[in-house]
């Protein structure tokens, strides 16, 4: 009998639940987006997020268990995000998982959301060869790390201010391109030419990132150069972001000599990033691992797959929310 993990993700603004086998096969998944709840605020409103999670979480779990055609006795464990994330949102997932664990008699593991992202690349099919370098680029996170195996991470660098996804959203708003910003800017950038000379913050320094200066620079250019088209503005911004991301990825590949280069997170959906990383990987003879776009954003399946690592290691963190959990802590 195949056994499964029920993966629950509620760290930000998506309630996502999945049933995942040890080899990464996803038996069922359902994600309830809160996009409409937060749209009017131009960002995630934490108190509305936790309310929406509370409304969605049990119906989602019920649906996924039914879609997977399993009962609690088919579960080896429940895995639930314990951080990083919004505390109110994390608490809904954690309290729900704790009670289900008690009621069903199934063990529950608190899982690091970042480790979930790292594992998203191996959903449905094992793609990673170790050692690897991973770059996580999304609305919530921007970081680059070295992975010796699926368990041992070394953080190389993270952002000092905005994440790259956040700066995409903010610039999209400034340009009046609407939300979510990523796809809109990418589409506009494709039509445009990077005519503006925007800064490449911290491009030549180690592995840290900083995107807030770039965003301010775009704001100044909008004011100073009203003649520049939205498309060219977008192309210039995307080119600057890509330059920085590529430089950091290349530095890590040269330093760590990995077998694979993994790109995960919502921004991994960007065609410009995918193309750029493909060239980089080819130049350095590493295999590029990009998850299908559906696994790039927050989802319960990545939490489910990460849970299997915790089970194998026998590591069972507590269920106390950790809003600032770092990559190196399980």
């Amino acid at each position, binding site marked *: 009998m195949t056994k499964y993990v029920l993966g629950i993700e509620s760290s930000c603004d998506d309630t996502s639940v999945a049933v995942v086998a040890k080899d990464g096969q996803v038996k069922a998944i359902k994600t309830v987006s809160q996009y409409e709840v937060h749209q009017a605020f131009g960002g995630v409103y934490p108190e509305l997020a936790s309310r929406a999670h*509370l409304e969605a979480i*049990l119906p989602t779990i019920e649906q996924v268990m039914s879609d997977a055609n399993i009962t609690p006795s088919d579960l080896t464990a429940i895995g639930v995000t314990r951080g990083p994330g919004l505390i*109110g949102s994390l*608490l809904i997932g954690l*309290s729900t998982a704790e009670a289900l664990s008690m*009621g069903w008699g199934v063990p529950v593991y608190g899982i690091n959301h970042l480790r979930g992202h790292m594992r998203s690349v191996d959903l449905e099919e094992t793609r990673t060869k170790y050692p690897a370098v991973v770059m996580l680029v999304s609305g919530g996170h921007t970081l680059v790390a070295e992975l010796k195996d699926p368990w041992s991470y070394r953080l190389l660098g993270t952002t000092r201010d905005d994440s790259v996804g956040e700066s995409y959203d903010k610039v999209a708003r400034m340009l009046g391109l609407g939300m979510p910003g990523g796809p809109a800017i990418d589409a506009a950038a494709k039509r445009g030419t990077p005519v503006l000379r925007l800064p490449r913050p911290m491009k030549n320094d180690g592995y840290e990132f900083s995107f807030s200066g770039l965003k301010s620079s775009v704001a100044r250019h909008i004011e100073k150069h009203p003649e520049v088209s939205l498309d060219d503005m977008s192309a210039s911004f995307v080119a600057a972001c890509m330059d920085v991301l590529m430089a950091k990825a290349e530095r890590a590949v040269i330093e760590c000599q990995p077998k694979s280069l993994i790109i995960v997170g919502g921004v991994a959906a960007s065609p410009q990033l995918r193309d750029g990383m493909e060239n980089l990987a080819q130049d350095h003879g590493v295999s590029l691992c990009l998850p299908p776009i559906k696994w790039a954003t927050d989802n319960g399946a990545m939490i489910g797959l990460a849970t299997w690592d915790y089970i194998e290691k026998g590591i069972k963190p507590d269920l106390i929310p950790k809003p600032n959990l770092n990559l190196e802590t399980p």
Partner: protein
Amino acid sequence: MTELTFLLQTSNGVPVMGLAQGDIVVFDSAQDETLRGSRDYRTTLETALDRLGAKLENITELYVDIGPGGLGVTRTGVAFANALGFALGRPTVGLPAFELLGHQLEQNGSGPVAILRKAARPFVHFGLFADGKLSHYEHCERDTAVEQLAKLDSYALAGNVDISQDIMPTCNVAAIETMLKIARKQPAAAPNTRAYPIVETLA
């Protein structure tokens, strides 16, 4: 061990968990030094069941406080109670905090009960309870509530907002016996019933 009723009150910020058999409270975490106020509902419940020699499956119905009050603690309590009810295939019924507080103070004396709880400043949750029911509720500025209270001859005060130096709230949580009494007045609920916190106005 026969059927048990699970009771959880959280919105005052200091959770109280109870278990009852029929009309008798057989466990009250507020009476237990080691468990009092604990937000670790699993440990509290496991300890209680252990002491009673009962099993989780003995729980046939769940009642949980749905606020208004502390947002996070109320939602966490509801999430736990809902999921437990779901896992056991038992109903989880929501009970409004102001009904609980109103009944608590009404049974101690006569006259209406005013309930004020802090919300995001300068707002409060304001309720008036008389003749066994909540007759008024609003999310308003503290001064608006105080103005309305000034028109009343006398009242008992519950919650966590002082009106003046002379009028301090008597309590901010109902006894688990009071919660059980209110629970017993609820109509029978279907097994898939779940509780949802009162939708609070967010400033």
